[in-house]
Each structure stands twice: as C-alpha cells, then as structure tokens.
C-alpha cells in the first residue's frame, strides 16, 4: 500500500514543480503507479532504509535515491548497489 500512498504525493509534487525521488521495497507497485523516480532496494517491507543503526548503509540508500534526480529519462527505476 505504501508505495501507492507516497506515489500519489509524488505525482502531485511533480505537477507543482518539486522534483521527487525515493526508495521502494515493492518495485512492481511503484511501476504500476508510475512514479517518476524510484530506487529498488533489496530488503523486506519495513526495511526500506536497510538496517537499523547502520548509518553508512542508510546514507547510501539516500545518496543513490538523490542521484536519480540527475536523470532525464523518466521513469527511472534503478536497483540499489552496495
């Protein structure tokens, strides 16, 4: 459900001129909803940011999600690499 809920916010923000990106645990739903940019992360639901108390891993997720805003070839769905 969550990828749709944030996806709805994401679509409206883009229309208002705010660039959006994010991480997703369920790439299938992000694709169905049609979000412009998403980073596909390899962890179960509830673990979008990787591991608790692992700042290095969490920062890598955010940095890779932010890097997707460089891209013009929308929609962008990239796989997280660490």
């Amino acid at each position, binding site marked *: *459900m*969550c*990828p*749709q*809920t*944030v*996806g*709805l*916010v*994401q*679509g*409206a*923000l*883009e*229309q*208002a*001129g*705010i*660039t*959006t*990106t*994010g*991480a*997703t*645990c*369920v790439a*299938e*739903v992000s694709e*169905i*909803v*049609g*979000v*412009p940019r*998403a980073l*596909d*992360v390899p*962890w*179960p*639901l*509830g*673990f*979008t*940011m*990787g*591991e*608790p*108390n692992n*700042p290095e891993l*969490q*920062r890598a*997720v*955010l*940095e890779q*999600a*932010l*890097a997707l*805003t*460089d891209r*013009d070839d*929308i929609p962008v769905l990239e796989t997280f690499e660490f």
Partner: protein
Amino acid sequence: MVWIADMDLKLKLFMRGYPWKRLDETAPAHRVKDLAACRVALVSSAGLVAPGQEPYDSKIKGGDWSWRSIPGDIDVRSLTEHHRSDSWDHKGIEADRNMGMPLDRMRELAAAGVIGEVAPRHISVMGSVTAPGRFIRKTVPEIVEALTADGVDIALMVPV
C-alpha cells in the same frame, strides 16, 4: 525487493486484485539546481508522530488519510510509530526511527555538502490508505502547499 508472488496468500490476493491508482502522465519536474544547493524534505509513510501530535487512528475505515508535519530539527528518537498494517515488520523502525524518517542521515548529508540543506519540516503519512479518495482530495494538496511554501527543491519518499 519483495515480489507480490512471494507474499502470503491473503496479501498476494489483495495486491493482485487491488485497483491501483496510476499517476497522470504529465511533464516531470526536472532538477534545475545542483544537488549540493537543494533543500530536501522527507515524505515518510511509516505513520510516525511527533510528541504532542494526535496518533494515527487505526479504526478509520479505508485508512487514516491525515498527515503530520515533522519539525526538521526534531530528535528522531522522540517520534512514535502508529502504522496499522501487520503486513510489514515493525522491528526495524522500533530499533531506529531513521528506518522510517532518516533525518539524522539527511543532516549528515547536508553537513557533508551532498545536499544544500534539510527542509524546515517533513511529511508523515500512514501508508495503509486502501480507500485513497480523501487522501487525494484533502491531504495531497495540503502536503504540496506545505512543501511549496517551504521552498523545497527535492522531496524524498520513504515508504515502508
């Protein structure tokens, strides 16, 4: 990653049968500034609430469609989680609120010069909104208004 095919039967049937919304095909908002000059806000669907705010109501049919404004300078350890769904493991966020609202990490990225600055407020919603009509009509425009007023350049989604 989680595949719908691997979910338990009840969730799989729901996910396969659910009438998913599809975003309008409009021109995407490309980033115009350098990332290092951008103001970034988080949008979390983990159902997090700051001290003194109303918890999300798990009894609302179709899901609590309201939102909370999370102050940018908050101690993330003070956030409490009120997400109604049992289809995800809450232990990660229980152990570290940055799993749902990674504000400590955003501050580190700002300090390192990766982004320009952390926005003055961030958005919390409770992602399990199966009947999104009120969410679309009321909540989404309010969130857009808030982030526009704050001069946010990039909004980063953290679904759970």
